[in-house]
């Protein structure tokens, strides 16, 4: 059936994406040069949605100020989820807006419009819900769905039992009375997810259909996944290599496609940008600097003669002249956990600044507003607001 209204859940921080989420939620992290959420909106609007409700919470001003009252002429209604107690709790915040069949999607995962379209197409009001599912190599870290002849039989979070699971793509078509049931139950242990709600529907004998596609689905679990997200966007031609008109690239600079260079960027003489490099709004690449296979967020300045490989930055980062992000692979330290051999040169969070001549060992994580003295070599994980001397 045709569905016109969608609720997008964009209120969660995404703690595993720290330190990039210090001032904004995961849906506002860059997929290429646009926030993940903007891609989600694009796919929804391309699939025919004309009425958007967004549940916001953590870092909500980042969402509200980026999109304003409408996106691509589709009005946006914002609903505030004051405390984040799971996705069903988020949906509950928006139930007053639901009086017809509604699409509910996660705002922090990239899906293509085929998944959305197929979910709508499969849905009719004989079922309480239709779930978008895809074949996916490994569902252990995600939501697994068992499907029998187009009908969902069981939903398991992080399944490990080797049955033939499909992946829950986080796209749901819901009937109003199903929403009522899903949001009406008391959470068992603090958080209360949509999957808990769907399981309740199954227990109550309300049928859930599965809409299967092999469309694109990407989730950034860790900050360095943003590199892979950008690569997938290029490879799947979801985005095309592009240099904005309002960007200034010096005649002697070299751009190796695919790249995304956003408005107001400046690329200096002799610099080399690309391939697989995304420069957000107003990024500066100094003379003779090299930036390769990196996602550089807005207002970051890369100094002259710097080399930046396999790097993810937040906003307003300063990589000084002659500094070097060596490139991956490297071991990444997050708290007590070590992620071995990740393809990460360095992750540098919002407004961290180095004075120049700094070397970043593979897999280094720099917190926000860190300042690093000239000539230092950094590695491991450095907490926000510290000075490295």
């Amino acid at each position, binding site marked *: 059936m045709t569905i016109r209204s969608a609720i997008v859940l964009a209120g969660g921080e995404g703690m595993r994406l720290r330190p990039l989420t210090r001032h904004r939620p995961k849906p506002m992290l860059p997929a290429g040069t646009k926030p993940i959420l903007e891609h989600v909106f694009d796919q929804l609007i391309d699939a025919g949605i004309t009425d958007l409700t967004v549940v916001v919470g953590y870092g909500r001003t980042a969402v509200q100020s980026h999109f*304003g*009252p409408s996106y691509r*002429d589709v009005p946006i209604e*914002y609903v505030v989820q004051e405390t984040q107690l799971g996705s069903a709790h988020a949906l509950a915040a928006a139930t007053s807006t639901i009086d017809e069949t509604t699409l509910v999607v996660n705002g922090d995962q990239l899906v293509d419009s085929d998944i959305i379209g197929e979910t709508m197409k499969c849905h009719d009001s004989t079922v309480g819900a239709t779930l978008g599912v895809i074949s996916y190599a490994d569902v252990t870290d995600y939501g697994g769905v068992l499907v029998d002849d187009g009908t969902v039989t069981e939903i398991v979070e992080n399944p490990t039992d080797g049955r033939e699971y499909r992946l829950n793509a986080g796209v749901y078509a819901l009937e109003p009375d199903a929403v009522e049931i899903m949001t009406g139950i008391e959470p068992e242990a603090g958080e209360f997810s949509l999957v808990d709600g769907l399981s309740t529907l199954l227990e109550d004998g309300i049928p859930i259909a599965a809409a299967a596609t092999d469309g694109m689905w990407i989730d950034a679990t860790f900050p360095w996944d943003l590199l892979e997200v950008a690569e997938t966007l290029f490879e799947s031609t979801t985005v095309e290599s592009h240099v904005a008109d309002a960007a200034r690239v*010096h005649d002697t600079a070299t751009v190796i496609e695919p790249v995304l260079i956003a408005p107001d960027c*400046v690329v200096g003489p002799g610099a080399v940008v690309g391939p697989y490099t995304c420069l957000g709004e*107003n990024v*500066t690449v100094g003379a003779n600097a090299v930036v390769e296979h990196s996602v550089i967020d*807005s207002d970051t300045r890369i100094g002259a003669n710097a080399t930046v490989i396999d790097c993810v930055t937040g906003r307003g980062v300063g990589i000084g002249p002659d500094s070097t992000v060596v490139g991956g692979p490297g071991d990444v330290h997050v708290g007590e956990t070590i992620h071995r051999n990740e393809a990460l040169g360095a992750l540098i969070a919002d407004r961290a600044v180095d004075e120049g001549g700094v070397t970043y060992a593979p897999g280094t994580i720099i917190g926000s507003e860190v300042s690093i003295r000239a000539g230092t070599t950094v590695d491991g994980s450095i907490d926000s607001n510290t000075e490295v001397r």
Partner: protein
Amino acid sequence: MCGIIGVVGETEETAAVDVLLDGLSQLEYRGYDSAGIALANTELNVHKAQGELEALESAVSRPALRGSSTGIGHTRWSTHGPPSDANAHPHTDADEQVAVVHNGIIENYQALRDELTAAGVEFASDTDTEVVPHLIASHLAAGDDPERAFRRAVDRIEGSYAIAAVFAGEDAIYGVRNESPLVLGLGDDASYLASDVPAFIDHTDRVVYLEDGEFVRLGPDGVQVTDADGTRVETTVETVDWDAADTGKSGYDHYMLKEIHEQPTALRQCLRGRVDELEGDISLESLADLEQSGPVQFVACGTSYHAALYGAALCREHGVRATASIASEYTTDRVPVDEDTLVVGVTQSGETADTLRALREASRAGGRTLAVTNTVGSSITRVCDHALYIRAGPEIGVAATKTFASQQLALTLLAASLSNTSSHREIESLRAVPDQVQTVLDTSQAKAIAEEFVNADAFFFIGRGLAYPVALEGALKFKEITYEHAEGFAAGELKHGPLALVTKDTPVFAIVTGDGKRARKTISNIKEVEARDAPVIVVTDGESEAERYADHVLEIPATDERGATVLANVQLQLVSYWVANLLGRSIDKPRNLAKSVTVE
């Protein structure tokens, strides 16, 4: 000054009454003391109510009024007579043959009123406007048709005005403008007239800007524009690029807070395409052919005047002879102007009557004129030789926030352009400003400061150099939305009098940026305040030792002095917002104020 809307014709979805009431809601920024509408059938149907538009909405039944296809509406900001039902527009004659809405001031209204009273007319209101329907009625009584009666009445009045009138038994609106804005909208099945485009942008984006002295008749057969003699005038139809949807609150409690958070985006738009860091160039498209060697005089009012002070100070730093004047005083003072003078009018709306008057006089005296405004197609752009747009996007909150920041950046570009001084370094620091504003928004402690000092007796703001206009603006913002006593002073001036007001219950906000001579002198002024036990809140980049003398600190990122004052202002905007919010004030529509002041 007020907002006017009118419509002739109806579409399937919207009857005239809906166009009027919905249009008025888009014009409330122009005034919200009282509102009213008049619909024309064989008789006139007039409804009005004191208070915000909601009062009128609840006083009328939309369905009952959907039979009319012609009507006018008005939202008022009082100039003559207090807000009341009687003083609300539209005004009519005794027999309700004609209803009139008016924006502006009729300067000879007392003489006309005396004359009409002597002839036996009884007035129902204290307004200057009411003379118009009575004058029209007297001409109708003498046998004139409505159009002729309208023209003869307008002939008699002096002052600034945009007027629209409807007559019983006629499907038409008659309008005229002189120094007050009036714009026409051309739809497929209906024609519109309003003080500003947003009033009818939901229905059409094809507009005609009426010029001073022009008359218009909107009828079922379309729109006819004529001059004072009744000769047909050829008009230019423009298509406006205005996203009507851009005017929601997008999840914020107030437009003001939304607009404060929109500043990084607004500033990016202001700079886009105008600065080139690779070449170290600043280029302002509209000023390419402007060679300036003589003095520069800025004229403006309110918040824009503070931006003008900032712009003039920047020009002087670059060696350009520049002054800033309050527009209404500029005309009173008869400031000398010759053909070497560039007069720069700064106005967000482009409709500020005092500023327009100053520019018209400067133009008559032979000076060249430049408009610095946010509003494409506004009156000021047609009065001035050149226009520089600040590109801040629509601002709905009556207290100007993002438009002040955008004015600051636009005037920084102007000062560099007029003095032919721009450097890679300067452009680098300009390009950093949007993100630095974002940093302030992400980290500001203004809410905690507001909670601590909300009950203080008075609030003072001090600054030196470029921070002086920002201190004035900080205090003005505070007054506008908190209704508390606030004053801004040049830091060095405090000891010459105002220090007498300083007590332990009067927090002093001091702007200290950098670590130069100016910062050190301001720190001395802070010590003077501290010695009188006043709590000191320092807005600073932490470069100087100002924090040592402060009770509280509002931090801003380190940058040059120009950028720093933009950032300091954002902190002060947030302090004002949170104090007003704690006091439960009407933040987006503060009492007695209107956004666009189109009367002198």
